[in-house]
């Protein structure tokens, strides 16, 4: 199990940041990802592995509308 934006989410082998975003349906282009507090740049999403127990923050930026 991992934490995504303070909520539990099932973890599995081979989970990258991009896989997680796909699972969550996070298609918004304007987001910031941090894994255990560490910023992950967009170009690294496909290769940055997520480990069981990680704390992931996916910050959707628009406070706009």
């Amino acid at each position, binding site marked *: 199990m991992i934490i995504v*934006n*303070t*909520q539990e989410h099932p973890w599995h082998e081979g989970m990258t940041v991009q896989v997680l975003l796909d699972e969550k*349906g*996070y*298609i*918004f*282009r*304007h987001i*910031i990802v941090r894994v255990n507090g560490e*910023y992950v740049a967009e170009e690294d999403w496909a290769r940055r592995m997520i480990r069981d127990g990680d704390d992931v*923050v*996916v*910050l*959707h*930026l*628009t*406070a*706009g*509308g």
Partner: protein
Amino acid sequence: MGRILKSYNYEPGKIFRGYTGKSLYINVGDLRIEEKEVTQLMKDKFIGGKGFDLYYLWKAVKPETQWNDPENEIVMSCGPLGGITQYSGTGKTLVAAISPMTDIPVDSNAGGYFGPLLKFSGWDALELQGKAEQEIVVFIDGNKGLIQIETAEGLAEDSHILAEELTRKYAEDEKDMVNVSVVSAGSAARHILYGMLNFSFYDPRRKTVRFKQAARGGLGTILLDKKIKALVVRFKGINPNLNDVADIGLINKIGVKYHKEMRDLDEKQNGMRKIGTANTILVMNKYDLLPTRNFQTGGDPEAVKISPQVFIENFLTQGIHDGCWYGCTMSCAKTADHFKLLTGPYKGECVTVDGPEYECVAGLGSNLGVFDPQAILEENFYCDTYGIDLISFATCIAFIMECYQRGQISQEDMGGLDLRFGNHEAVLELMHQMSRGEGFGPMAGLGIRKLKKVFAEKFGADPQLLQDIGMESKGLEYSEYCHKESLAQQGGFALTNKGPQHDEAWLIFMDMVNNQIPSFEEKAEALHYYPMFRTWFGLMGLCKLPWNDIVPADNHLTDIPARVPEHVQNYVDIFNGVTGMQIDKAELIRQSERVYNFQRVFNLRMGSGLRQHDKPPYRSMGPVSREEYESRQDLYDKQLREKQGLDPEKMNLDEKIAVTRKYREQQFELLTDAVYKRRGWTKQGVPTLEHLAELGMDLPEVVEVVKQYL
């Protein structure tokens, strides 16, 4: 040609550091034209823009004033930063009046050239009071220092023709057309309460007049009730420092940096320059936020048919600068050019459609069950040229459609129109009926609040159901976001001054997706900061979009990325650079708080503005119907278990709906308590005398009103 009823010559006020120091009063009833001094108190307490609008409106009306009384005013102002050309989004005009929808002050804003040209013609604000005896056009020539009130005979009704006629009439030649801006409504605004105002600007590349709208709250209805067919301003001589700013170097520097961001980052971020605000349609659909069939659900598989790509590839002209004021590199005002109309009085004609913006695609599209881009653009065009507030229309018709779907009203009640979800032919016919003042058009143009009464009393509809599914608060229709799962946004719509419009706060991602503001106190802080911050745009004459629809590349490294701190600092610096004052980020919020609290007290003065007036319909908060609950049963059942400690397996559907409702309504009350406390208000929503004194807004006339409620 119109007959001149009144001619008035003036010496244009010299602009100094963003202000002309003068405002213009026109009484269209007795043809009085007066110049007023903009006082230091006005600048200190009300700043400009919406602040000046509310200041003058307060003085003009009495507590018992109705929207169609002659003393009601339409007030316009563009603010001290309005008209600078170095930064994006600096051409807004703020408009206020007592609204026919809400009976309290409404403020709405528009791009287009009118506000800046008005200021450069010598006026920080324009008040329009009285009712003319016959239809008139008010013309202001800022170069000649001339104001004329003329009769309006022979002019077209609908804005796309009327504004073109007037632009040609008052421009000295073809090249001068860019120096003319027209404010007008349209034929439907005569017959409905949510008529809107079109603000024009001439596009020399397309050789056509285009529009932005001050759409909310029935301002176009008031304009025509005053028998003002149009306002026209002409000013030639735009240059980068007409505001005579204190530090042009600083403003240039900030502007250059911002434009570079736009050039480098827009493509990667929101794509505003390709599609404008409609870039978010599929995002909203994916996150269950796209209002569908009267906000019953937050998305539909058919949404792909109205995706941004569909509009870009098939309709929208690309590669042309599309700013609605000089210097805006965001350029989000898109158009569908050479668009062939299939219905109505202009059937067969090819026109330029300004849009579609997000609210248009969501409101006239998914929320009406319409997933046909051609139909949406045609609805968009007719809303604009007829002078119909697109958001109120869409949300109101969605309500009517659901009433029809649920058997609360019949086809016969709607004059034979088959207003089922998805029937865009009937939607367009209804618009045409509004234009002609025939059939079901005028009744549908009353807005949801009045329709609830009509449907219950005349057609025997269930008042409780109407209350639950009618998406209005304070009499104004909700804008187009399905926000049931964001408690903060429920407050962002209902705990507002003018009614549920997202220009005060849009907290859905922050609350529902990011889970950044889980406690009531955190939500309340957001419902303090963002409405105050966003109010500031309305004081200045600025567009909100450049603030956070593009952000600096290193924004993620900042302490609160959602606030886009670098851009907030840009605004502080631009304000200081224009006015020569020295404010900081905290004072920026204070400036807004003064006007925000004044507007709250203004609501009290008009008999509203209390806790009881801040209630949302239940459709805003949770699932009204069985189908809605079942559409997200897993989510709602999970919430019953985790938030209320209940076992959904032991409950039938109606019981689950009932306990969910009770819980959510309680949550909203707790949120209201927290927000009022943070804003310095009593539990009934009244600003305290201490808070007003702390803000420096304990003006005698304000205190006198507040004391009645303490």
